[in-house]
């Protein structure tokens, strides 16, 4: 029961983050609820895999990216939205912003210290966060693009015969 509550809480906040950041990119209002749904499912799946299935964040991100990509392609055809306009905003809550933040934080520590051991430790943390952040972005991108590549006719045909603009 506690797990369900945590998953729902994670999904709810990810959904808000997804549509919130999507609105910066002029996401059509009709796509908001679907985008929230996809973002919630993707993020809570990653949360579950990392915290309860002991999967590394990189592989969990790939799984979440694939799920979001596939859902976007198939929901997109129903609501006449391009797959990217659903998958990209849904992936935004998983963009490793905190890894980028820690990368720069440790870079500053590297620059500002004169102690060798502190420098080495900060450099290690900087490299670790940088590598993980970059690989997460690549995995999310791959996850989103694979369903589009596998089902190009569905993915690119979603905007055919739109009657409501």
């Amino acid at each position: 029961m506690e797990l369900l509550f945590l998953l729902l809480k994670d999904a709810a906040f990810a959904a808000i983050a997804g549509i919130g950041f999507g609105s910066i990119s002029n996401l059509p209002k009709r796509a908001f609820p679907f985008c929230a749904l996809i973002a919630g499912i993707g993020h809570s799946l990653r949360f579950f895999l990392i915290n309860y299935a002991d999967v590394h964040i990189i592989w969990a991100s790939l799984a979440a990216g694939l799920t979001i990509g596939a859902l976007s392609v198939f929901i997109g055809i129903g609501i006449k939205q391009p797959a990217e306009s659903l998958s990209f905003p849904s992936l935004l809550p998983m963009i490793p912003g905190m890894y980028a933040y820690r990368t720069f934080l440790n870079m500053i520590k590297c620059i500002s210290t004169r102690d060798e051991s502190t420098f080495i430790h900060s450099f290690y943390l900087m490299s670790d966060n940088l590598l993980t952040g970059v690989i997460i972005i690549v995995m999310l991108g791959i996850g989103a693009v694979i369903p589009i590549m596998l089902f190009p006719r569905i993915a690119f045909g979603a905007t055919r015969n739109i009657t409501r603009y």
Partner: protein
Amino acid sequence: MSKEETLKYQGDLCSFLCDYACELIGAGGSGLRASKNVARMAARFGCSCSLDISKSAVSIQLTSAENKLCAFRSKLIEHNSISFSKIRLLSSLSWDVTDKMLNLDQAFTRFYAITKDKPLNGQFVRVMTCCANASFCELFGGDWLSMGVVFVATYVGFFIKQMLLKNKVNTFVTFAISAFIAALISSTTYIFHIGNTPDVAFGTSVLYLVPGIPYLNSVCDFFSGHIKLGTERIIDAILLTASLSLGFCGAAVIMKIF
């Protein structure tokens, strides 16, 4: 049609397709979508096309299947503001040109209307972004007070970003200033001991500026073979991230947080 008329028609068609591709790439469309949509419309008019897409310009060569006459156009992409709404409408236009057999004038009229597509209300976007960033704070383990501070920091930072971009200030400078202000406001969690997670509040206050869409777009472009477009997009995104980090670090140094 005489040869001159055919050439003029083909030139107009080529200009339209070039404008279309520029608008789609400028709106954040992937290279794959742009090439597919343009090829689809070119085929409807009995032509084949070769596209060279980069982040700043599009070049197109159009060859008539009937008489092998060629037209060539190249155009700079003047504005880059991501709009999923525009991507949807432009993609729909490419299908309508094919399925409903729209002629060039009809297609251009529709295209012109799409370019005038209004963005979402600025105030609405600001509030949504604040909610999103506050949610981000919660996802990273922030408490309610930290979320409140992040909400306020995002509102002010995003408002400044919108104002600066409206006044055509350089994008990198805008990102740095916006991040600096947002980080400065969120540093109050350290100074006034607001909430139990000041580090999360401080770290997440600038995350609304991380260019997530260009990062994802560039990965998609790489994997669909549009290496040049992908490279330009990722370098732009890295530079924007570096700019926001500069503003963020400036605030951290001034407030003596590190």
